[in-house]
């Protein structure tokens, strides 16, 4: 990683650690949201940026994990760790199951099948009312600090818990993408037939990539459930998956900093801009179109002198 980028990274981490006590609760809340979506965006990037598999249903895992936490904590009054583990396990298992259906298709077909799976999950959350409450959603998720038995309560302690999870996930993912497995994924993205001829089991690699992406998305979903206190079908519909897709492609697929940048920017713009104007979607759409035209590799990759080819 180049020097300027390393400096930026250190600066950002330092700000994230030391700034919050100086900010208002509104900003602490926004930063918390940014980190949650950053984890989610990074998880999608594993599929989209590193393996070259465009998934348009990724918010589904996020939502399912959040719903699991919601159902377990409100209907079954499970303990904190049971909810956390339950959420991550259910989301990951879903990835294990769905992965079997999707790992043999590529390109646009992969896009469609993941969109379809995302819609299946949305449909279930919307109509399987005895479990999910349908359109009403599930509210009353206990506050994380209380549920986990932390000594302090409030947006600041929650923020630091999220920061911890965010740093842990980032480190794990960084190790993952620079491992031989991670490099194989990049090889598959560039030229799958060559990888096959070299003897790699590309199906298995794609499958595992999908499962790992699902696992990290579930982590984000668990934290989100506690942050929001409320889950509903809105959080895993097509718009949610599309916004997530935008976060990754806007920020810079194929890197870890790119999705973080994209997630942070979109959460920030969404919340701040919609305080001034209703035209949030127009601005987001325009940014997206302009970015594809001018910086198709996303903003974080602008330094690279690559052709403007998108995978």
């Amino acid at each position, binding site marked *: 990683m180049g020097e300027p980028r390393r400096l930026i990274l250190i600066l950002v981490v330092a700000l994230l650690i030391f700034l919050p006590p100086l900010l208002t609760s509104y900003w602490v809340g926004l930063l918390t949201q940014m980190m949650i979506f950053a984890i989610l965006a990074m998880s999608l990037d594993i599929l989209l940026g590193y393996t070259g598999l*465009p998934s348009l249903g990724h918010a589904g895992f996020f939502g399912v994990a959040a719903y699991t936490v919601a159902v377990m904590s409100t209907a079954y009054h499970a303990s904190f760790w049971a909810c956390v583990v339950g959420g991550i396990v259910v989301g990951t298992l879903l990835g294990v199951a769905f992965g079997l*259906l*999707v790992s043999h*298709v590529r*390109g*646009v*077909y992969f*896009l*469609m*099948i993941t*969109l*379809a*799976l995302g*819609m*299946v999950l*949305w*449909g*279930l959350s*919307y*109509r*399987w*009312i*005895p479990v999910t409450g349908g359109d009403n959603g599930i509210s009353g998720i206990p506050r994380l600090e209380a549920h986990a038995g932390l000594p302090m309560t409030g947006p600041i302690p929650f923020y630091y818990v999220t920061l911890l999870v965010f740093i842990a996930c980032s480190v794990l993912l960084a190790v993952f993408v620079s491992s031989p497995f991670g490099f194989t994924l990049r090889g598959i993205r560039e030229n799958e037939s060559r990888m096959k001829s070299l003897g790699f089991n590309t199906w298995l690699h794609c499958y595992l990539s999908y499962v790992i992406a699902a696992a990290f998305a579930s982590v984000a979903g668990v934290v989100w459930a506690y942050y929001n206190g409320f889950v509903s079908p809105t959080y895993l*519909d*097509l*718009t949610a998956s*599309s916004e997530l*897709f*935008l976060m990754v*492609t806007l920020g810079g697929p194929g890197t870890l900093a790119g999705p973080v940048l994209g997630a942070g920017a979109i959460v920030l713009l969404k919340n701040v801009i919609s305080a001034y104007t*209703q*035209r*949030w*979607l*127009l601005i*987001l*759409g*325009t*940014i*997206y*179109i302009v970015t*594809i*035209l001018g910086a*198709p590799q996303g903003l974080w990759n602008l330094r690279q002198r690559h052709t403007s*080819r*998108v*995978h």
Partner: protein
Amino acid sequence: MIYLTTQTLNGLFSAALLFLIASGLTLVFGVMRTVNIAHGSFYMLGVYVAYTVITRTQSLFLGALTAMVVVAAVGLAVQHLFLRRFASQPLAQMMMTMGFALVFRDAAFMIWGGDPFTLPYPAGLRGSINVADIVFPAYRLFVIVVAGVVGVLLWIVNEKTFVGAKLRAAVDDAEMAAGTGINVALLSGLVFAAGAGLAAFGGVMGGPILGGYPGMDFDLLPLALVVVIIGGMGSLKGALIGSLIVGMIDNFGKALVPELSYFTLFAPMVIVLAIKPTGLYGRA
């Protein structure tokens, strides 16, 4: 018996609307190999434009015509100015259309506001038809007939005209088609525009019943995608069969298994994609 007939007719009505919308989507995929995320937006713009025209002229016909022309023009502009430069990168094109979907949605809100509306029934089609104790709205029957006519027209164009032949060639193998002198770029533009116009027409036809409201673009897109996937991308016949299947499943599913009604719609899509991604009548 009454129930079965009524539900079947309901299914045909849904199929009719779906066919009008999905036919454009499937052809765009066939020629350009990309998914147009803004296709629902064209459907939405169609009914909104028609609304403006109809409140002034009271004519559904004029409204439909204007809507088709305007939205086709918008489609052509999008394709020509923005999508064409990414001709060999379907993913970039798809992402562009995603951006446009957002822009169109907000533009519609800015121009027409957030109030939902329904188009007025055309005179003469306002009542219901009453046969042997079965009561069914006349307008819905009309839509079924119109969609049938459009289907036949599309088939004629596809099978019996020179343009249709070029289209089929491009769907089969775009590179080879270009090699034989077919202007694939121009064809893509025409198909995209035609698809947009058809979607707009579908929106207008559905207007008196479903009307227009914010968010209708993303409500409809997944359904159109299900039709195209089950039927097969690039195939008009597939769009027809797919619409019938989805229309029936949707209506009967809502009645028989309301809790799983969305599941019954999207699960077949997943199954088809997992087993034969090109769909029933699609080409690889």
